[in-house]
């Protein structure tokens, strides 16, 4: 059980968000998500410049077991994608909060942080699921 980074926000879809200094938001899937999926074999990334909307399709992570949609947790435009991840999907298994980041999005409006989960709230969610 790895510890949840304290500087991130989380969603109930098992994604994490990090606010960068320039206001952009980096997004990935949590350790819980990668463990549930197993060894990842393919990642489908969006194009840079693509608009995303909250709750809409943004990326797909695929393991031997299943394909899992990664939804956009905010409205905005994709400004960076992790090409290294596309070549080596297992980065998301090995380092889900670091090297395994998926996309960076420039938000198109203020982010409603109250709609996201703090590390404690996400941990509570995990504890409930495992019960």
């Amino acid at each position: 059980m790895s510890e949840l980074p304290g500087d991130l926000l989380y969603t109930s879809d098992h994604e994490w968000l990090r606010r960068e200094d320039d206001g952009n938001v980096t997004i990935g899937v949590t350790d819980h998500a990668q463990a549930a999926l197993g060894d990842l074999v393919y990642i489908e990334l969006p194009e840079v410049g693509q608009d995303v909307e909250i709750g809409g399709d943004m990326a797909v992570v695929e393991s031997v077991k299943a394909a899992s949609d990664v939804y956009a947790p905010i409205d905005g435009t994709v400004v960076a994608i992790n090409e290294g991840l596309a070549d080596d999907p297992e980065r998301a298994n090995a380092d889900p909060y670091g090297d395994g980041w998926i996309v960076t999005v420039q938000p198109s409006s203020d982010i409603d942080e109250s709609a996201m989960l703090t590390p404690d709230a996400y941990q509570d969610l995990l504890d409930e699921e495992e019960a």
Partner: protein
Amino acid sequence: MGSKTSLYDRHVEAGARIVDFGGWDLPLHYGSQKEEHHAVRSKAGVFDISHMTIVDLKGGHVRDFLRHLLANDVGKLQDSGKALYTCMLNEDGGVIDDLIIYFMDESWFRLVVNAATRDRVLAWIRQHADAYDVTVSERAELAMIAVQGPKARELAAPSVDVEWRQPALDLRPFHSMEANDMFISRTGYTGEDGWEMVMSAAQAPAVWNRLLAAGVAPCGLAARDTLRLEAAMNLYGSDMDETISPLEAGLDWTIAWDPDDRDFVGRGPLEKMRASSARRFVGLLLEDKGVLRKHQRVVVDGVGDGEITSGGFSPTIGRSIALARLPAGDYDRAQVDVRGKLLSVRIVKTPFVRNGQVRIEV
């Protein structure tokens, strides 16, 4: 909470992620199914297969019984310990199960059948055994371990009693023998060399520990599935079931038509099906990125639709592969509907991988 084998605690200790499999609590993997897969292809891996059903058939007419019950012919088994892969058919020619049968002596044959079909298979065998005065004993107290890979037999040999070690190493493929309280067969479900070892449930943990100490990797159900798929070995319940004949599941080679007067269960309907054009059962290689999965629709331009029966990712090849049942015809390409997109596949001659080598053109 399902049934547990005598190795359950060992699995948990080794860090297994346990899942339900046909009513059994078994290891899905121990951290990385990919690493386990590669361990089997390059060195050796060990699988707990104690959930499988071992049945001993004894009596004065076992051979005659089995020549009637099974689609392959146990008449081919004349050396003690020799084994045969066969289907057991229902009266319509549909597959009740696929299994391995071992000839031990004229009064004793041993069968190993799938866990998921246990009840159906036992009931069917018992029903037919009556007329031949054959006793049917399920050996539920026995454990079974599969050690597979190029180094498997070498690393498993020290677990065999010393006086039987060399005879065990001398076993030819698809042959078996007893070694005191152990039963060893040179068979497997991975496409690599190796043994399947039967022993008492109480003996299994010590054998398991010794194998792990010798560097054999513990392997779970996930790796078992990617290995058998690469080897194009059928999985009952996915590639065939009682509504499917062996002719449409790539198993025509397991039917012994000769001698033509051997009346086996399902022969009549099977002869009729043989005369007409069966669907093709083929291997597919995905040419794009993505993963082929069971039940996905296969589209053959100008011919019709088929279905993937087993699909997944091949760690050895690094691409997705599948087995599929397709309409009859002479074609070598198709498309698969993968989550709404039509992706190109090439029909390939299986197996995809055998003895550590990729056998198809990639």
